[in-house]
């Protein structure tokens, strides 16, 4: 079964949202900060068939809305040159708009809150499209 890279700073959300995906048979590697994933090699990233990134991740600067997730997507696409599908989740519309303006290839944006079943549907759809 395929492997998902899931980054969300909030452990409670992480646990609750990924439960259906795990039950559906996906292997999920979870990380709670960008720092943990930032130093991944291209080889490490390539083992995942999907990345799910939450965009209200802990910020290093003063503003809660600094879009560090954008940097990670940029890095996956432009530094590592990996085209795996990415789902971006955020409760902040500004952050979602920042991502949409970039018009990244194969990136789906979803405004939270979302039901776990709806998220699982997106994951299954992506899996079916990328077989």
């Amino acid at each position: 079964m395929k492997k998902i890279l899931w980054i969300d700073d909030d452990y409670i959300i992480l646990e609750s949202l990924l439960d259906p995906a795990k039950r559906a048979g996906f292997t999920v590697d979870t990380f709670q900060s960008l720092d943990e994933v930032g130093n991944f090699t291209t080889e490490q990233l390539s083992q995942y068939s999907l990345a799910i990134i939450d965009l209200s991740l802990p910020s290093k600067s003063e503003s809660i809305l600094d879009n560090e997730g954008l940097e990670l997507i940029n890095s996956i696409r432009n530094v590592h040159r990996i085209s795996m599908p990415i789902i971006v989740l955020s409760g902040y519309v500004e952050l979602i708009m920042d991502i949409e303006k970039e018009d990244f290839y194969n990136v789906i944006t979803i405004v939270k809150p979302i039901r776990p079943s709806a998220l699982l549907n997106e994951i299954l759809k992506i899996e079916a499209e990328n077989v």
Partner: protein
Amino acid sequence: LKRKHTRLIPYEIASLLVDIFYAKTNFPTIIFETRLRENASKDHCLIHFSPFCKYIFEIGLGEKCRTCHKDRAFDLGCNGITTCWLGLHNIKSQIKFEGEVVAVLLFGQRLINDENRLKNSKEVFQKALNKLDIPYEDEVKIKQLYNQIEHVDYDSMTNQAESIEHISSWIYEMVNQKIQFEKKTQYAYHELAAYLQATLADAENFMMQIDNFSPYKEQAKQVVFSIERMNVVVQNFGGFLGDYYLKETSLTDIIKRSVEMYMVLAKRKGIDIIIYNKDSRDFPTILGSERHLEFAFSNIIHNAVKYSFKGWHRRISDPIEVEIFGQYTQNGYELSIRNFGVGILANEIDTGKIFEHGYRGILARGEYRTGGGAGLGATREVMIAHDIKIVLDSVCTQKDQRQASSKFSYKELEGVPHITTVHLSIPMGIIK
């Protein structure tokens, strides 16, 4: 990761301060923010500049002035009176807030009535002039304007500094309080939203485990639904775009900026974005909140581009553009943003679901809409706040005229092209 220098006071307030200072003291003033490391009112301060300084900018030497202003503002060793590269006197005044220098004011552009200072000023001016490679007539004009610079007493200038410092500190204190409040609100929103998202997820996971025939199944569904509604309430409370600051706002500028934002995406899809105004070159200027309106228009235009069919997938008779059309009517101004492509089910429009926060909807070709879930709901809120009526229609274009209707499921409408239009009715009352 890059860190941006963020300003403490918004550009509009910095510009207003510059105007107030000029009205009170008659001295042109520049505000440099310590955190921003830049002139906070940008070039707005130029309108108050002395004829001498304005002329220097006119003949293309403004950059030298900008650098000189900045160097003096952030030079820790120079305080009080400073002399610019052309010999004019300014007063540099630091604005402190909670013991920290938050801004530096540079004001004056005068010559101080003091023999030694005047002598020094002339020397600096002459030396700078000698180094400049400018036409003779410019040199003559500069000398002429230099001789017309107002002379002021040292005391009158420093007295003004005191009152300006007080006003500035007061403004910074107010702005700081507002920022602190916003941060706390943002934090509270973040925490509430996070826990509600987790609760929603837990509730649904729990509901899924209840047997369909159990009497508790319906109750569990109701809990999930209630939590979902609560999430919407919290999302609205978050007020992600901040307060509405109403001012004269050019819709032409907003539409232009929103179109530019998605031009790359449109080009990639082979779609033209046509802007057509029946009555004049410009869309109207309205009393509105620029930030909110820009969000709303960019959202509508983005959707129009995103859900348009690609140019090379079309039939010859199909339109390949997103059209933004405007005209005056008896009651105000009608704006429509139209695109050809993936439609919206009539059922979603009729029930108003498409405008609900967080509703991501079903597209008329059978796909869930991604992104912008809160976009259309928030867009409608922005429009309502401006008294602008927003109506959406999505009409099936195929010859058999199978209208997008709730009678048909999305599967039946799969691949059927639609013309989707967002109609905005702007009332005369807000048009300037």
